């Protein structure tokens, strides 16, 4: 009997699970090669100035040192900074490692020691002595924000929306007004796997690069452009990535250094950053929001004004979508937006999980909570009072929006109706209990992506796409889609990802991979079905001789007539009967411009948080989170839930723990380790309840998916901050909410 239990929509364990739990999954620094050399980076200890001298004599004298690279002897690379531009970089001049004697930020790589062993490289690096001519630096956003500016060149898609109405007048006419400053500390991604690149030198002017990246094609194009190589000479293979969160979107400096050394030495080279060096590149920009809400007595909004200033480097204008959300989430006729930058002597900030959204949404959702207090309205009722069904920023139609159901189901699960609105009114023993909520939103993207599917003579399917799986579950959801298309079991599908020789995909970020790569695999499967039918129809005495695609179904590894399921052919037999050893199809999907002009698409969430706070010590525990998510079709509830849990954990970190602390006298981050830069540990995380609200969306992407990587974090920090206020009556407007702020 033909059965076809659908994998899509059902919980499925990760197909890369066995490799990951046995230590067989191989990450960038774990690929090896004969005669592999090891590079160790020395970073600048000052924030700004000029390198006056580098003494490498003692380091060079260490037996086993192969070469020490500085700006004085680095091999020639591309002349123009534009050659260093990557697929997702912001406007500006990208950082060029070892380019000249200028120090642009503390921690900047200025020496690479290459040696026969890791230990020799590390030891020799400790012997390098550097003199600097110091220049005055500025690393304090508070000081620099007064010189903030609107970036003259906008990063693609990052310009704030146009103002509407008269927000200033409407604000002053409003009965209720909230106008406050909300700030968020600089955060560092700190994926568990430090950035690393292993370059395998093949001896024929070609290299294979194993890079910690969220986009093998981005790394490949960067290497080709910077080093003047043809793309054919550079293959990037990164099947597993030990966490990305945005840190692997742009090429990081270890990629440059490893390739540079390998090409010059004509030898395989690995450069692996230390945990301390993970604080010397990309991070989430420190941001200050000034947000003003004006409303009627009943809480209905009249005016939103959102002005954000984010830190950026001297050399690039990094921009994220910080303020737009404030004109989008609630019904408001008068709105104005400003998104500015302030230059500091730091490395360029970059995208980090839901770039921009939790920064701006912490401000909006804190201010909404303050407005609810001012209006004496339940915070949830205030959101419902201002609910909106269109994209007011653009006037476009929303493809779907089940946020109302998120509010309802989340509130029910959490028990929100039992909340006593008076701050400090709920307690148990010496602990104050606080309940807070917030909304979340993230744009649903889809980008041009190709995929190839191949059915072998054994009737097994191979899916190939250059996209990454940074832990998102991409391997698994693509296998589910492919398995369903041909009625196969999950075991009959293999998925190859993270290889620049495979069909093209954009970097993995922005929650767009499931929609993009998933749709590409679906399209390729459709074409492969046609090809299989065509091959089947030519087989002798074929029951499919006259069948159209609509007439057949694939189940249990066989193709059958819908009208007469007993007449079927094994897929393996169709392939075996064909001239080739396999039948393959490749397709490319891209977003529809027509649809884009007419529709906007967003994932939404409602987040409910419970905190318990020791009244005397100020210790905060987040004891319960309910995150109700509407994100279109859920391909795999098991991995999807994990995505949301992960985002929530990041929200807890943002709310309570994460903060890069800079000594502005030195212009240097002081807590450059996992002991001092705190991320949530197991004991910090209690109950996290994830609800997926039914949401049918036929337009967001061909497979109805909106994406899940970002939405889990977006509203979480604000919900926790609001819960802290409810517990204590204290409104902390700067994240993280540390004990000193709470008791101060």
């Amino acid at each position, binding site marked *: 009997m033909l059965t076809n239990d659908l994998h899509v929509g059902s919980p499925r364990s990760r197909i890369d699970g066995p490799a990951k739990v046995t230590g067989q999954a191989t990450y960038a620094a774990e690929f090896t090669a004969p005669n592999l050399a090891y590079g160790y980076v020395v970073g600048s200890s000052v924030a700004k100035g000029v390198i006056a001298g580098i003494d490498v004599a003692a380091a060079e004298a260490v037996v086993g040192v192969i070469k020490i690279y500085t700006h004085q002897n680095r091999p020639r690379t591309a002349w123009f900074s534009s050659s260093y531009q990557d697929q997702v970089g912001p406007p500006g001049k990208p950082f060029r490692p070892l380019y000249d004697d200028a120090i642009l930020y503390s921690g900047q790589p200025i020496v690479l020691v290459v040696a026969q062993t890791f230990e020799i490289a590390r030891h020799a690096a400790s012997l390098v002595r550097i003199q600097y001519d110091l220049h005055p630096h500025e690393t304090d956003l508070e000081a620099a924000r007064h010189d903030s500016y609107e970036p003259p060149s906008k990063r693609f898609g990052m310009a704030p929306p146009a103002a509407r109405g008269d927000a200033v007048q409407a604000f002053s006419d409003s009965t209720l007004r909230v106008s406050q400053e909300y700030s968020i500390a600089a955060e560092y991604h700190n994926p568990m796997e430090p950035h690393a690149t292993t370059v395998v030198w093949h001896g024929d002017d070609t290299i294979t690069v194993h890079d910690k990246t969220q986009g093998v094609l981005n790394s490949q194009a960067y290497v080709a452009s910077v080093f003047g190589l043809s793309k054919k000479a550079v293959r990037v293979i990164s099947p597993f990535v030990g*966490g990305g969160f945005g840190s692997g979107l742009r090429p990081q400096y270890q990629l440059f250094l490893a390739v540079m050394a390998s090409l010059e030495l004509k030898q395989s080279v690995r450069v692996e950053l230390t945990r301390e060096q993970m604080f010397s590149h990309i991070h989430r920009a420190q941001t200050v929001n000034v947000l003003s809400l004006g409303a009627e007595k009943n809480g209905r909004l009249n005016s939103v004004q959102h002005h954000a200033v984010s830190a950026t480097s001297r050399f690039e204008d990094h921009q994220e979508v910080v303020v737009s959300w404030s004109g989008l989430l609630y019904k408001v006729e008068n709105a104005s937006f400003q998104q500015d930058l302030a230059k500091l002597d730091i490395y360029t900030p970059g995208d980090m999980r839901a770039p921009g959204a939790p920064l701006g949404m912490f401000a909006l959702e804190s201010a909404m909570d303050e407005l609810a207090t001012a209006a004496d309205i339940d915070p949830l009722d205030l959101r419902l009072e201002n609910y909106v069904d269109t994209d007011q920023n653009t006037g476009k139609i929303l493809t779907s929006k089940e946020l109302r159901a998120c509010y309802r189901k989340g509130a029910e699960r959490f028990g929100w109706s039992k909340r006593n609105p008076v701050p400090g009114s709920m307690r148990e023993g010496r602990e104050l209990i606080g309940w807070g909520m917030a909304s979340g939103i993230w744009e649903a993207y889809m980008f041009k992506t190709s995929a190839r599917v191949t059915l072998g003579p054994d009737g097994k399917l191979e899916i190939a796409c250059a996209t990454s799986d940074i832990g998102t579950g991409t391997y698994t959801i693509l296998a589910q889609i492919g398995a369903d298309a041909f009625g196969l079991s999950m075991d009959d599908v293999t998925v190859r990802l993270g290889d620049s020789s495979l069909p093209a995909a954009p970097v993995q970020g922005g929650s767009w991979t499931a929609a993009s790569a998933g749709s590409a695999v679906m399209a390729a499967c459709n074409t492969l079905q046609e090809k299989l039918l065509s091959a089947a129809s030519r087989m002798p005495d074929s029951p499919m001789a006259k069948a159209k695609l609509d007439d057949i179904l694939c189940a249990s590894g066989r193709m059958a007539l819908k009208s007469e399921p007993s007449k079927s052919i094994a897929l393996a037999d169709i392939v075996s009967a064909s001239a080739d050893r396999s039948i393959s199809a490749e397709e490319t999907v891209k977003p529809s411009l027509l649809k884009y002009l007419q529709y906007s698409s967003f994932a939404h969430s409602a987040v409910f948080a419970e905190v318990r706070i020791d009244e005397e010590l100020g210790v905060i525990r987040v004891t319960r989170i309910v995150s109700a998510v509407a994100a279109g079709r859920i391909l795999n509830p098991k991995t999807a839930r994990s995505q949301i849990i992960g985002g929530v954990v990041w929200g807890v970190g943002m709310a309570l723990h994460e903060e890069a602390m800079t000594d502005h006298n030195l212009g240097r981050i002081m807590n450059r380790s996992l002991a001092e830069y705190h991320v949530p540990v197991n*004991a910090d995380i209690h109950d996290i309840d994830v609800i997926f609200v039914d949401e049918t969306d036929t337009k967001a992407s061909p497979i109805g998916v909106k994406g899940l990587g970002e939405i889990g974090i977006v509203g979480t920090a604000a919900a926790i901050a609001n819960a802290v206020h409810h517990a204590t009556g204290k409104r902390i407007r700067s994240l993280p909410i540390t004990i000193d702020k709470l008791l101060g």
Partner: protein
Amino acid sequence: MTPTPHSGTSVTFSLNGESRTMEVRPWTILLDLLRQDVGLTGTKKGCDHGQCGACTILIDGQRIYSCLQLAIMQDGKDIVTIEGLASNGELHALQQAFIDHDAFQCGYCTPGQICSGVALIAEGHAGSRQEIREFMSGNLCRCGAYPNIVDAIADVAARFPGAHHGAKP
């Protein structure tokens, strides 16, 4: 200490059930020995400073950060890494539970989490979710799989109640 050529010191230990004698230099860290010299890269380097737990392995049944161990200290020790947990092609119960409960995403902290969890159960400290959370807090997971990690460990601890007396789950 200058790492000039050094003939090394002979150290004999059991690694995943096999006796090995290696010439190790005095400055070589056990984690680097495993990853580079032996080629067992399942044990991960996340911080090299005993702050993240990605390098957790079992030495004489105890969970140990291998980045804080010198290789030269291992003479006579019984070392088990993630590669040695499965037997005869069958996953250890906790490895399977990690898959079943989706207790990982990127997978980089996973070997350390699993080794830590195996020892935790043997220590008898997997009695409640709160206890597991507390005793697993030396293993960071940046993907935030903590609730699922607790589920996986609680599941195995409940199914193999004798495990902490030395019975192998």
